[in-house]
């Protein structure tokens, strides 16, 4: 299994995400700098990490979405590679058009940094196969711009097509329909604000996030 983590100037969860990939797959992901124009051949899994790429200039994720490496990510996604965008990574994926909608400033105006309750809305996806539908889990969030926005037609379509992977189980940031994570049409791209990579070891206090990575790797190994 080949994985990669994209590194933008200002990424700060790239190493945590690499540790999570390695913990469940046994192989180190390639760390890919934002100016690179190619990803390793036949890449299976790409992580777009959290952080403050380009200092959140213009809009969160806006500059990173236009960086050279994102064209390679889009090509890999088109080919069926899994792409997991977490926090700033989710913002990058919406800004690049790989996922619909946008992430606005949190409704309360505050940066929210705490564990939040989530429910697994769709447990059929490659990312959520190790969870039960409707299962309540807890992941940490740490973001200022996590208020998911899309027009009603888009929201209806996301819900109708089972593309809402995760919802908040409590009031967090004003997200439309409490959306915490969404899938693309083919189900191989997931963007989410909460951080599964921060809860994969008992020492983290929780291990709820580990199954997301385990499910992904399991699916990839079965695909070969």
């Amino acid at each position, binding site marked *: 299994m080949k994985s990669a983590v994209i590194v933008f100037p200002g990424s700060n969860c790239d190493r945590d995400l690499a540790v999570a990939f390695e913990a469940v797959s046994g192989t180190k992901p390639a760390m890919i700098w934002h100016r690179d124009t190619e990803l390793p051949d036949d890449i299976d899994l790409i992580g777009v990490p959290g952080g403050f790429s380009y200092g959140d200039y213009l809009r969160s994720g806006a500059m990173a979405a*236009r960086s050279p490496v994102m064209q390679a990510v889009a090509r890999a996604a088109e080919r069926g590679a899994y792409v997991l965008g977490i926090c700033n990574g989710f913002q990058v994926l*919406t800004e690049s058009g790989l996922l*619909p909608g*946008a992430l606005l*400033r949190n*409704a309360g*105006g505050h940066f929210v940094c705490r564990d939040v309750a989530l429910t697994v809305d769709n447990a059929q996806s490659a990312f959520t196969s190790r969870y039960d539908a409707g299962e309540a889990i807890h992941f940490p969030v740490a973001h200022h711009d996590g208020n998911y*926005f899309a027009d009603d037609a888009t929201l209806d379509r996301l819900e109708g097509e089972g593309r809402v992977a995760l919802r908040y189980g409590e009031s967090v940031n004003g997200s439309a329909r409490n959306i915490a994570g969404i899938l693309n049409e083919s189900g191989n791209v997931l963007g989410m604000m909460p951080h599964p990579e921060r809860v994969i070891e008992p020492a983290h206090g929780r291990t709820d996030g580990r199954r997301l990575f385990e499910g992904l790797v399991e699916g990839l190994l079965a695909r070969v």
Partner: protein
Amino acid sequence: MKARIFVTLKGGVLDPQGKAIHHALEGLGFSGVNDVRAGKLIELDVADGTSDEDIDAMCRKLLANTVIENYRIEKVA
């Protein structure tokens, strides 16, 4: 040639920054402010003869996120 790009949130898109500014104005004793919406002004210094289409493309591809924002271009001689 200079072009000013005004980027504003679409109607119906929540603007917590505008809300905070509104509250601060009220705190200073300014009553009668019905609403505040905050946006961005981006000034471009572009080569003379840059086409309107090019400036519009800059707005669509980067300067504004048209999912949530509107933009208006004002050319300054």
